[in-house]
């Protein structure tokens, strides 16, 4: 095998992408864009799993990423159904309009 990518670089990239996703989830108003930011955060965590599994010669990182992807797919299906329902009720997917629970 060739020389590996330094694991610290992968962790750094993951930290940067996670924070971009977190800031996006906080500052955006469109619920679908917030949802995509959360997917971005999930992806950065996947990157940490993969790079750690590669660094420690273990397959557990890849296995865990597989399950994270399954959960993300379920989350996408249910979340987008919720957005469609929200759009039917309110006529918009603006997250600030969804204040039924007075949050």
């Amino acid at each position, binding site marked *: 095998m060739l020389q590996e990518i330094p694991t610290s670089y992968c*962790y750094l990239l993951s930290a940067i*992408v996670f924070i971009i996703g977190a800031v996006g989830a906080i*500052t955006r108003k469109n619920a*679908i864009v917030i949802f*995509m930011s959360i997917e971005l955060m999930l992806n950065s965590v996947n990157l940490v799993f993969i790079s750690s599994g590669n660094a420690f*010669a273990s*397959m557990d990182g890849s*296995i865990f990423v597989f399950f994270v992807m399954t959960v993300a797919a379920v989350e*996408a299906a249910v979340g987008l*159904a919720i957005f469609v329902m929200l759009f039917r009720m309110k006529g918009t997917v603006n997250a600030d309009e969804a204040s039924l629970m007075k949050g």
Partner: protein
Amino acid sequence: MGAIGFKFVVFIVAALLVIVSSLLMTTRKNPIHSALWMIVTFFAMAVIYLLLNAQFIAVAQIMVYAGAIMMLILFVIMMVSLDNGAQEQKRFPMAMGTRLSWALVVVVLLVELMFAALFYQATAKVGSYPAEAVASLGNAKTMGMLLYGKYIFPFEIASILLLVGIIGAVVLSRKNK
């Protein structure tokens, strides 16, 4: 020596692409543009997975995320999103300044994470799946043997979770009587 440099250069290019496209994803006004930049992010991330010897996950990333989930999101955006939320700025309870100040608090977390990533000390044991051994058997085959062997119970739970997700999506998006 040339091959080593090449691998590293590909990593740097893919990492820059991930950062730039995710920044563009969070800053575009139009949600369709956001979704398209998200697809670019997923592809660049798949390249990084390939470099880290996770071929199966890289392909699954492209098929599941860039293929399935983003198509679903694009369809929902086309169904749903009429306004960009720009004209109703007045009656929002939480002002943009409040949001930005909370975002700055999160950026402090970025500095901490960067210190952690640079000065961590790995204490994990080295596992029994080095890259050469996995490559001789095949990455997907190793994953399959683990998923249907050691991890069969979580795998079944994941399938039940998918079933629950399907039923939940159908129940939620059904027309009210």
